[in-house]
């Protein structure tokens, strides 16, 4: 059996005794061209890339990602564009895992099967659907698995142990732990120590699953969490794009610089 690109990425990082760096950017932010350029440019420094497909009623995103989303919607980025960006990226970087992230309505309108077909055509490796929790996601997650697309299950500080066990059992290559009660990009309001305690609790249920931590992770906070299997940084990158635009600078180089810094902090 061949190992999935996502699993391989984690395996390689473990060899290097460091967490996987997972970046999140928004398709079409700040332009369709630039969002591709950013993916392409940061790929060398990151292990897994998340790309968000747009929805204009995002109920779990904080201010930074909302800004990016509205910017991309304004310049006319569509779901079709997102798949094209993904496809182009995977053509240039066939071994870099790419995960699409977004809200269920876009999948629902496409139809689950047609959405997955487009994922396959663009060589997308995984999916995160923010508002399709377990057990409602069971059927769709199975469909993903059949197509060799990893469906990423989420866990949060409010998830009970019993529920965690069931979710982990149904999980694929990667599980995403939400560090705190927050929308994305909130200030880290829980100490890294407590986050890691919770992390350990989950790992004790099943040590073999790749568990990543996200929400509130920045250049400042990342090194304190580096014992995790993987760390997700999103809002900090979206914020960098906003800042670059405000300062008349090139978002591609600025975001790349941040990603390099993040990578250095966990090496």
């Amino acid at each position: 059996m061949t190992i999935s690109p996502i699993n391989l990425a984690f395996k390689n990082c473990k060899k290097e005794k460091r967490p996987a760096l997972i970046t999140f950017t928004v398709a079409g932010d700040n332009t369709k061209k630039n969002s591709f350029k950013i993916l392409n440019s940061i790929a060398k420094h990151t292990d897994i890339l998340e790309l968000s497909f747009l929805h204009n009623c995002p109920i779990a995103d904080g201010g930074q990602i909302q800004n990016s989303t509205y910017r991309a919607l304004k310049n006319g980025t569509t779901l079709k564009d997102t798949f094209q960006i993904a496809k182009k990226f995977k053509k240039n970087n066939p071994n870099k895992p790419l995960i699409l992230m977004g809200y269920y309505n876009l999948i629902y309108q496409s139809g689950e099967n047609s959405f997955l077909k487009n994922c396959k055509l663009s060589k997308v490796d995984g999916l995160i659907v923010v508002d399709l929790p377990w057990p409602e996601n069971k059927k769709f997650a199975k469909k993903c698995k059949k197509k060799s697309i990893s469906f990423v299950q989420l866990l949060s500080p409010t998830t009970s142990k019993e529920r965690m066990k069931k979710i982990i059992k149904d999980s694929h290559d990667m599980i995403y732990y939400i560090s705190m009660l927050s929308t994305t990009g909130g200030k880290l309001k829980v100490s890294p120590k407590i986050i890691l305690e919770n992390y350990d609790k989950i790992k004790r249920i099943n040590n073999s699953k790749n568990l990543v931590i996200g929400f509130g992770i920045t250049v400042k906070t990342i090194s304190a969490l580096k014992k995790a299997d993987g760390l997700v940084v999103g809002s900090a990158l979206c914020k960098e794009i906003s800042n670059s635009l405000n300062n008349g600078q090139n978002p591609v180089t600025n975001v790349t610089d941040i990603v390099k810094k993040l990578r250095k902090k966990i090496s």
Partner: protein
Amino acid sequence: MKIKKNVPLIDQHDKNGFWGGKFGGSFIPETLKKPVEDLTILFQKLRRDKNFIKKRDYYFKNWVGSPTPFIKLENLTEHLGGAQIWAKVVSEANGGAHKIYNATVHCLIAKRAGKKHIVGDTGAGYAGKMLSMAAKKFGLKCKIFMGAKDIKRQKPNCDAMRKNGAEIVPVYTGSQTLVDAVSECMRHWVSNCDSTHMAVGSTVGPNIFVKICGWSTSQISRELSIQIKDEFLKIPEKLKLINCVGGGSSSFGFWNEFMHYKKKQVEFIGVEAGGPKNSKKHAAPLTYGSKIGILHGAAQYVNQSAEGQIEETESISAGLDYPGVSPLHCFLKDAKRARYTAASDEEALRAYQLVTKFENLNPSLEPSHAFAEAIKLAPKLNRDTVIIVNSCGDAQKDRDILRQRLGKF
């Protein structure tokens, strides 16, 4: 799709929370799974708890002012010369609209859950005003999320919220109306669900919020059913219950008690906001055949692009200015128990003028949409048909818009 007899409509969903197999559900982030589950268990318990019911009824009677009046609109009936037109004057409830029922129940639940903070969304400002009133009454700290556009056009209700000690959080994203306020309120709850109770302002949102709101506003039809029997000695053979529909909380509450009657006897007519006469935008997903989509945690008919982006709405009435609609109404539409139509901004304004000319009644722009339909229907029907309009809000909050559009208030 069929409605079951002897089971409350709010309970006619499957184990995943879907009415008619496809409307509703709980499309929520993982973080909210536990708080939603806790709330579901608590509500199931409380609605069977005699003391809780007693408490609810006590506050409904002594604080909200139950029952609200049921009156015949003699002059309007004479003028139109057809069916009898009656009004259930829910705007006489404390605070001036039906939103008080849901707000009161949510505060009672929050108290039981041991929460000290309560947050809510608002469009017309009534849900916010009532929640701020109830929060003050029950000693809860209150935050209201409201679109920046609505804050401007519904100033009187904003003043009331602030007077009640609530904080109004302006929402500047998207269209800056109700749809964005609900999103922002949900985001706030995601971040604060350990200390905070959330009240969704209508029969929308994840399954449990639809149920709590529908259960609360059903007070309207419980009263009405008794009042009709007092007046007519029985439920008339031809009864039409006309109500405006935005999210759908007042209409659901106005109809619930009559659900088991045959449609031939008790007809439900929901009137959505058609928007300005010459505009393509509207807030009438049921009337204009919008597709099913996911909005604010529930599957429903919703105005959206082919790709699934929620479309901006337009209506003179902030309370109806919502791209989606309650899963309960989607169910009632597909089960063919209710029928839905729309009134334009202009029709609502004309209805407001006519009603206020003939009657000592001051319906807000939301029920003015319902009156527009009643005015259209009545002349075509006989005197033995009884039309009842739910006058669910008072126009005080609309005084600036009415002054601007009609030159007087």
